[in-house]
């Protein structure tokens, strides 16, 4: 099922989830420096091209400014979290807005946020980030501000700070997880999560002795990327193909994964393969730790694997596949909370049932 905007020029294949496409771009085995350079070289051309046909893509505020383009722009940066990119985009909406009252501004923001969400329905952190920001806006506007401008600047400031919060969140999570990594342990990692990388990086810097098993992570080859990074940190790394997880689970002490989204039941939505690994780990009594920032908490509640918005990602098998053969191209799966041990978040080390508590407090 097509999940993205037909007119976006990034998509060669309409059957692809934008979110995962971006992730794939991030995971491409290139260095981040290279990417930054390329980006600088490319400049804002893609954005110009897009803005011509951006009218169908959810224009708002009618001043030729498209929040979606803003967002895409931010999103290209590999180190920036999705939610942060979304919030930065919304911040730019505020900046360029010509509203004179809080209500008007709120309405504009709501429209922008809705268009962002509908543009990529598969990205959970995008939705969560937008919701969070809108929530914050509504709360702020409830406060009495004498001056509209001061309220506006306060919102802007908060949006800017959100980026720092996100960055700091990773640091906090890394700090919290240090106690769980002991000398001589073997950690199994699946997928390429910047948070998990931060965790491992911090552990390495703290001179802990541990080794990492990385799954290959087809089709995105996340394992290759991760092992690259870890090798730079002088951490002993071993690559496994995805099918070798159960085989190696005996020698593993703990499993570390990131999360694309944390849902209300306490389960996580993450790259395809996480559920499998969690099942194997649980049956062999190995703890599964999830590292996720708190803005990834979403008000979703999948009942089973198919209960989510499908996010498709084409797989390149290297050889042509006959057209009669179907390929399961879903890019993510849902891991129910009973298979997770702890969630490391910037709110602390939580057990899966606490997620709903936090969500209720945030949204109610």
């Amino acid at each position: 099922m097509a999940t993205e905007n037909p007119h976006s020029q990034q998509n060669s294949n309409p059957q692809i989830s934008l979110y995962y496409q971006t992730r794939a771009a991030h995971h491409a085995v290139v260095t981040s420096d290279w990417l930054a350079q390329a980006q600088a070289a490319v400049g804002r051309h893609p954005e110009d091209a897009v803005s011509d046909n951006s009218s169908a893509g959810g224009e708002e505020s009618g001043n030729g400014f498209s929040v979606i383009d803003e967002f895409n722009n931010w999103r290209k940066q590999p180190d920036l979290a999705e939610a942060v990119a979304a919030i930065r985009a919304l911040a730019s909406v505020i900046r360029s807005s010509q509203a004179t009252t809080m209500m008007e501004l709120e309405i504009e923001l709501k429209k922008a946020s809705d268009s962002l969400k509908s543009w990529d329905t598969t990205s959970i952190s995008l939705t969560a980030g937008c919701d969070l920001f809108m929530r914050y806006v509504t709360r702020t506007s409830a406060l009495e501000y004498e001056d509209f401008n001061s309220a506006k600047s306060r919102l802007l400031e908060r949006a800017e700070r959100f980026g720092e919060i996100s960055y700091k969140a990773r640091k906090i999570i890394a700090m919290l997880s240090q106690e769980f990594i002991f000398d001589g342990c073997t950690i199994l990692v699946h997928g390429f999560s910047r948070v998990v990388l931060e965790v491992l990086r911090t552990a390495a810097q703290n001179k802990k002795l541990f080794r990492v098993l990385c799954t290959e992570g087809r089709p995105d080859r996340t394992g290759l990327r991760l092992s690259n990074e870890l090798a730079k940190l002088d951490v002993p790394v071993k690559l496994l193909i995805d099918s070798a997880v159960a085989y190696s689970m005996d020698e593993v002490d703990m499993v570390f994964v990131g999360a694309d989204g944390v849902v209300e039941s306490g389960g996580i939505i993450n790259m395809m393969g996480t559920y499998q690994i969690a099942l194997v780990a649980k049956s062999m009594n190995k703890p599964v730790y999830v590292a996720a920032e708190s803005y990834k908490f979403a008000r979703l509640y999948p009942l089973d694997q198919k209960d989510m918005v499908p996010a498709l990602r084409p797989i390149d098998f290297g050889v042509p596949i006959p057209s009669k053969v179907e390929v399961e191209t879903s890019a993510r799966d849902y891991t129910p909370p009973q298979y997770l041990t702890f969630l490391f978040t910037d709110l602390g080390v939580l057990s899966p049932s606490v997620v709903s508590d936090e969500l209720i407090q945030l949204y109610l």
Partner: protein
Amino acid sequence: MDPRRVPRTVSDPKVRQVGFFAPPDRSQSGPPAPISSSPPVSEISPSGNSLSPVMIPPPRNLSSDMSRHFPPAPISPLRRGRGAADSSIPVGSYNPSEFISPTATADFSEDALSPGWSRKGNSAKFASSLPTGGIGMVKQNKVPASGLTMVSTVRMPKAIKEKERVSMEEVQMEQQPGDSKPLKEKTTKAERRALQEAQRAAKAAAKPEGSKAQAAASGVNAVNASPGKVPKATPSKKDSSSVVASEKRGGDRQPDKDRKKDVPHPRMQFDDENRVEKAKKRSVVRQTEARSRVELFRHLPQYEHGTRLPDLESRFFQLDPIHPAVYKVGVRYLSGDISGGNSRCIAMLQAFQESIRDYSTPPEKSLIRDLTTKINGYVSFLIECRPLSISMGNAIRFLKTRINKLVLNLSESEAKSSILLDIDRFINEKIILADKVIVKHAVTKIRDGDVLLTYGSSSVVEMILLHAHELGKQFRVVIVDSRPKLEGQMLLRRLVRQGISCTYTHINAVSYVMLEVTRVLLGASSVLSNGTVYSRVGTASVAMVAHQFHVPVLICCEAYKFHERVQLDSICSNELGDPDAIARVSGRTEINYLEGWTNSENLQLLNLIYDVTPSDYVSMIITDYGMIPPTSVPVIVREYQREHLWI
């Protein structure tokens, strides 16, 4: 995918313990949920009637070993009192602390009682059924030790069995304070025996009616030396018993001075003859206790079903204190016209609205207090008609909070209109709108091609199915039904009328039908703090089968039905329906094998109304606060209470 659920109870097959054990310092607060189980041999006073862990001591131990048990008894119960699950002692193993019968009156208990009461509200737990008979012997001085009052009186149970039981209990009673006073016990035993004999004789002389069962029941409790003291003890006990986990209406505490119109605790333990007598005196509905009752469920009220309604109807013009609207609602409850949590609650609130509209403060009285008293009176009448559901309890608590919060200097009409408005808002926001929100959330979980299973008839589930059908979703419904109520048939009719394709089956086929089901939608009478769902009997079985087949179970329940208590099993708190309904099959008069079942000594029929579904079987609870996992119910209860006050 999920590990088999381990059995929750029992270490020793001889003795089955359910519920918590008392914490070492205090005997009573432990067991939140009383489970009374007693072997068919009624020797053991329905052990824990009130709140003790359920013990089913093996029958043979009882009769012969009474005396032998005295010496060991002090030790084991003591240990039990310490919180150790001492299951090795067959008979006396239930937590002795539970045996404190607050109803004991005793002259000397008087003083000890009150401080005891106030000190430890929970002692009320031991309410009712405590073997008061034997308790009589317990010396009062033991009480202060633990704050539990020992019933110390006099009249002894009539039956010999009683005596044994009593003495057993006495022993336990004595042990309860948790201090070892074996010496004391021995000395008093003789005295008690003597007293017992005397009383038995007296009682035999003045032997009242009563079925065997009643005798047995009363034997247990019985005796209050000074009736005057009892009322005082009982209500305070009742008040404090509201703390008990078993209470349906949380926080319903009446000041002692309102004793007269005090609402009998909704979870009053009916094993206690004393309290039953008192309640009968005060009651409006005249009802006779059922003849043969299942021992395990003695603590629940069971009345003769045929006689109540005509009796109540005939007394219409004598029901002075009860407002006609409330009376009407009560009669409808009794006859079974209104059933279902939401309808009962709404009907009750509307009846209250009527009565408040017609209310006028008597001179020299404060509106708040008088109105509260009146409401209490109505509530006790309704309880007599049919025990309160948890949703009704919450609604009543809300109403009383609102009345209490009335600003003092409002004029009467202003006060009344404010209350009426509050009630309207409650009904609207917490029930009607909540249902709409739940429907909105739930239909997002229904996909095309789904096969939805539902059990019985829940108003919310019906709304969800109808709305989903209106939205054009393609699905079919399997309705699972069960005797004796066969509530699913009405739901079936209504759904088929709307054009939804339905399958109808009885609960014995649920594991057969579950193979093709994709989602299970269930309603609930209440959801408790540990995520347990308290709902129509049979729900737990359906949920369990669904869980086994990896079918997600969705519970749809409004937030006002949540309760902060915790219940571990279906026995400690439940409702008993008419056993004759089981004996008969409507429309098939040739099935009369159970005719005359009341005459058989060995046969008891049990018609439970509710059961308890553990949270492991529940995938998600859909409330007006959104879709939450069962572990988040205490969060909602916490938030909800706060908002409650803030309304």
